[in-house]
């Protein structure tokens, strides 16, 4: 037995990886190849789809749905920024001041997941509605906005929905990286006459960057492809690429257009991530410190 293992030692990593690779091959590579093929086809469900290298599916649709792509990038980006702005102080407080309530607080962060995503988004529809509690306070009691002001149907509602939805995805990686920071490093900074802000800026923040990186990817990627928030909370002008893909696939059976859009979105995300990784430093990502 021992000799056998020794002899085939080189194969062990492959054997261990086999289930994962098989999974990826069946559920990622095959569907994507099929989708790539579909994205270069033309036809309809009735007439059947024929693979014709129809590149126009890409070139035409990127222009035609340019506004939707723009919405996706802006809303996804804003949601990521807001998640960071809300999530960082939250994670910081839990990691450094949580004390014995840490686990309870973390549980509270993820507790919304115990309710269906759809129910939560529909609840926001009620909260942000024209006769809902939010406008009742802001408009009717505080008179901060004009009487014909609506939140629902606007970009504000969509970004708010996305931020709410993906906040835990930002908070948890941030918490992990903040929690791991060796407190003696901060004490050392203080001993060396760093102000509290200085210590945060020069020690805590850089050490938490892997968390920022992971968190922002975990928020940005699903947010940019989301369609439920724009569908339920948005209006005709705030439709994202996900809505178009959804409508083309499921409401019109226009598979080639939907597949092409999905690929464009994937490519855009990939390019974006590579640029972002370059910016924040790939070692931070691969260094395994997160």
């Amino acid at each position, binding site marked *: 037995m021992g000799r056998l293992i020794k002899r085939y030692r080189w194969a062990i990593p492959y054997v261990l990886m086999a289930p994962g690779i098989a999974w990826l091959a069946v559920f990622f590579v095959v569907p994507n190849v099929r989708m790539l093929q579909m994205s270069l086809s033309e036809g309809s*469900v*009735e007439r059947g789809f024929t693979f014709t290298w129809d590149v126009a599916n890409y070139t035409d649709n990127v222009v035609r749905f340019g506004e939707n792509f723009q919405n996706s990038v802006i809303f996804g980006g804003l949601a990521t920024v807001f998640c960071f702005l809300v999530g960082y102080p939250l994670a910081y407080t839990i990691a450094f001041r949580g004390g014995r309530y840490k686990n309870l607080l973390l549980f509270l962060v993820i507790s919304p997941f115990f309710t269906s995503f759809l129910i939560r988004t529909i609840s926001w529809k009620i909260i942000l509605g024209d006769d809902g509690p939010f406008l009742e306070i802001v408009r009717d009691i505080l008179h901060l906005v004009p009487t014909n002001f609506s939140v629902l149907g606007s970009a504000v509602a969509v970004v708010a929905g996305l931020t709410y939805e993906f906040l835990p995805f930002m908070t948890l990686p941030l918490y992990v990286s903040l929690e791991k920071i060796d407190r003696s490093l901060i004490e050392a900074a203080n001993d060396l006459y760093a102000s509290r802000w200085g210590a945060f800026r020069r020690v805590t923040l850089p050490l938490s960057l892997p968390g920022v990186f992971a968190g922002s990817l975990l928020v940005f990627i699903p947010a940019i492809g989301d369609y439920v928030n724009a569908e339920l909370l948005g209006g*005709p002008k705030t439709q994202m690429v996900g809505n178009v893909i959804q409508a*083309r696939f*499921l409401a019109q059976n226009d598979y080639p257009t939907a597949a092409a859009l999905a690929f464009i979105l994937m490519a855009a995300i990939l390019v974006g991530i590579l640029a972002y990784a370059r910016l924040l430093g790939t070692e931070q990502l691969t260094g395994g410190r997160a």
Partner: protein
Amino acid sequence: MSQRDPVRPLSSALAAPITRRRMLQGSAIVGVSAFLAACQAQATPTAEPTPTAPPATPGPTPVATPTAAPTPEPTPQVPTGPLNFANWPAYIDLNEEETESPTLEAFKAKYGVDVNYVEDIQDNESFVATIRPQLQAGLDTGWDLIVLTDWTAAKIVAAGWTEKIDQANVPNCVANLRDELRGLDWDPNQDYHYPWQSGATGVGYNSTKTGRDLTKVADLFDPAFAGKATLLESVQDTFALVGLMMKAQGKLEHDPEEYTLEDAQKIHDEIKPFVESGHVRGFTGNEYLQDFGSGDTWVAIVWSGDLASSGGENDVFVYPEEGSFIWTDNMLIPKGAQHKYTAELYMNFVYDVAIAAELANWIYYISPVKGAGDKILELDPSLADDPYLASLLFPPPEVAAKQHTFVAQTQDEENAFNDLLFDLTGQ
């Protein structure tokens, strides 16, 4: 086939002799559905009558159904269930507590079958998209009875995606269907459809919110209702109404029956600025009912009976001065349906005059059943004093004179029209 006029191919398809190919296709479908039925029967432990009759029973052979012909087993004349019935919201009568439907309960009790009634159809296009791939592949859609509007029903029938109704099973329908609904181009002999209800597309509003009564389509675009208006995400409904408004204003020459792509472009251009400015808050299917409920929508393009049956107290429907759009929704049995006989029994059941009257008098749509009108007045004499509700059930002559239908379209025309709508809805 889809390239051509959707109305035409049907008659030729009907006239065409049954080719061997079609026979084979048909038997394949029956084979698949029988297989699925067998699976389902095994999976459900309940003591429902199984759809497969013992081979020894001679039973009446189904005539004229090319799909069933090659199989040795006759269609079992035993109602099987549950009847999977997809319909639109606010389209069935409910009891006081709104927990169940009296007519559905009566049907269940009468035939001892269960009905899986699902309000799954918010608009024609997106519902058909959910079953089109199965129909194309010759698979069971999971539905036994669906309700689709004329233009969509015509396409489904023309594509050969519906089961042929055994007229012997639907004597009430044969006897009671109103004459003006018979002999339509797309299914002249009622081989594939019987109407569910007819209705109109017009303007709906909440009179408390608007503070005044609306009378015209043009009222939807009153600046006072900025951000509170929704339109329907269906070309036929929205473009027909806005087009009628434009015609009244002298901006458009044609009626909806004769729209060209050029007209559609003009209608699109008329609506676009209102979408850009946010005046039009969105495009909806039947879910406008929720938006009226939450107060987010004050004025909208809606279907005639919904607000009366399922809206708030101050939600009102009005036939616009410019004219309204009339349509009929039709019951169809999708190809490969598991419980076709039960679906036929149900069609027959709702064509019973008393049942039809009970149903229409709750949902406030126009019953396709002869004599239902008199029965409704008998059931509910107060209608005589309620011109609003009466107008929904029995459109007055001055309204009927201004009602229009939509132009019959080829697939390419329809796509072009739809693209104009998608530009408005942002998709």
